[in-house]
């Protein structure tokens, strides 16, 4: 194993209990998992993370603040020299909780805002969710915590970006992460909601334009790892600093990134499909054993261009990109190695007068981090694209094979 590789950035699902039942939730959050780690067990995990030189831990859920030991775990991470941050829907973040989080040592919080109020509330299946998210941002800001936001872009909210930016700027965010909704969990049940690959031809230039606006406004806009790839805007999008020449480096799962599920399952990235990518449980093995010895965490360390297929195998960027975001590709086809959610790929097809359409084929299982299956159909660029009206975009298109644990549909 390359000794330099270690879990520097960890995303830790403290609990799957949630005060939302979002229609795009990849983990189908709502109720807690059976056998979630106790606070005592979680503090042992903190020690293991410190021993493996974790630099930052993003606490998530469900909603991390619904775990009884949330503040204790935040403080333990801080005391261990690990930077504790959080991603949240924010509904339960009161001014008092925000101050407590600051005292415990939380160092940044990103609140998910999935569009302007009508679209956000529709996606999050809860009236008042948007206002709750903005209230959380203000409470966190007033408590002295640096605030950020993130959005999952899909066909429900893609028109909101520019106006939403103004709303978030006014609230005072310092950073904004933009990614796309992947067909994972509840989003897999709603194929009408998803972007089509050619939608990136419109989306990427708009995000690039927003990024330019963000620099003088003091807002750092960054693409999530499943938004990309390459094209003329890549350096602008992917660089943290203005004028930088960074580019996508490929999936970092199991290299410098790790995900922990609330019952102790460990995988190379928090979004990866549990069934295929959990390398072990912290109740049965040490973190180091899972990181160093499990094949599931090593998949991105070992593969080569020979592991790619389809368009990605022949792509000019194959060796660097390696098929983009692993969980997104796996969510579509049940394996990594070919990923149509790619800006460069959409541009190549557009030059040929065609585009790739994702068509739903098989339903998902109905379990956290599950997925269905899609197929690609190539069609002329000017083929009809009948987009369902607003509310139909979030209607279940394919019932999961097993009942969901919690739903508010």
């Amino acid at each position, binding site marked *: 194993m390359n000794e330099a590789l270690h879990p520097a950035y960890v995303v830790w699902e403290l609990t799957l209990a949630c005060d939302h039942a979002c229609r795009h939730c990849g983990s189908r959050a709502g109720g807690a998992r059976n056998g979630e780690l106790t606070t005592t067990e979680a503090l042992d995990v903190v020690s293991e993370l410190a021993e493996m030189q974790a630099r930052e831990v993003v606490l998530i859920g469900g909603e991390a603040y619904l775990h009884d030991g949330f503040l204790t775990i935040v403080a333990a991470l801080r005391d261990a020299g690990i930077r504790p941050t959080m991603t949240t829907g924010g509904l339960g973040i009161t001014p008092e909780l925000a101050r407590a989080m600051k005292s415990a040592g939380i160092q940044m919080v990103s609140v998910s805002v999935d569009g302007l109020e009508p679209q956000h509330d529709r996606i999050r299946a809860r009236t008042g969710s948007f206002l709750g998210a903005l209230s959380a941002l203000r409470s966190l800001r007033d408590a002295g915590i640096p605030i950020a936001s993130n959005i999952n872009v899909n066909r429900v909210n893609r028109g909101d970006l520019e106006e939403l930016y103004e709303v978030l700027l006014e609230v005072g965010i310092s950073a904004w992460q933009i990614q796309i909704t992947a067909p994972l969990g509840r989003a897999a049940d709603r194929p009408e909601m998803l972007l089509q690959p050619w939608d990136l031809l419109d989306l990427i230039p708009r995000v690039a334009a927003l990024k330019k606006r963000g620099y003088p406004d003091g807002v750092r806009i960054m693409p999530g790892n499943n938004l990309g790839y*390459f094209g003329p805007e890549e350096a602008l999008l992917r660089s943290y600093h203005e004028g930088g020449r960074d580019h996508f480096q490929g999936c970092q799962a199991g290299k410098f990134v790790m995900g922990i599920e609330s019952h102790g399952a460990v995988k190379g990235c928090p979004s990866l499909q549990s069934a295929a990518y959990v390398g072990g449980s912290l109740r049965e093995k040490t973190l180091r054993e899972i990181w160093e010895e499990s094949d599931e965490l090593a998949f991105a360390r070992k593969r080569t261009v020979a592991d790619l297929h389809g368009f990605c195998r022949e792509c000019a960027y194959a060796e660097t990109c390696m098929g983009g975001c692993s969980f997104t590709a796996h969510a579509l086809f049940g394996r990594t190695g070919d990923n149509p959610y790619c800006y460069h790929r959409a541009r190549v097809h557009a030059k040929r007068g065609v585009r790739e359409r994702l068509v739903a084929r098989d339903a998902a299982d109905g379990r956290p981090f599950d997925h269905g299956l899609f197929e690609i159909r190539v069609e002329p660029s000017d083929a009809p694209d009948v987009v369902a009206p607003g509310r139909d975009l979030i209607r279940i298109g394919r019932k999961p094979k097993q009942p969901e644990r919690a739903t508010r549909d």
Partner: protein
Amino acid sequence: MKSCPSCESFVPATICPECGHVITKSTAKRVFGRVLNVAVGGATAITLAACYGLPYEDPFCSDPSADLDGDGYCFEFDCDESDPAIHRFASDEAGDGVDTNCDGVDGYPGDAGTTP
């Protein structure tokens, strides 16, 4: 990867995959994608996974000449370059009159007597 002088795209070989411009030695501008440099706390191009990750805020100083106190932080992440114990990610005990974490108060907002 090289940088295309025509369209600014990245060029893995000699022909720009975006515009077809042929890169010769005279036109090549080689740039290196940054990789995680954890050992020295350098800058990184990694952003965290979709939906869960923060936009990676790169606090570690990319300009060593600006990190006068050698604590690894600079510019907006370090309000006092004469003291390595003071930076935005330090703990801040209230009552000592020092804003150790650069948030404008001694301790944390809401603590008694937090104006340094």
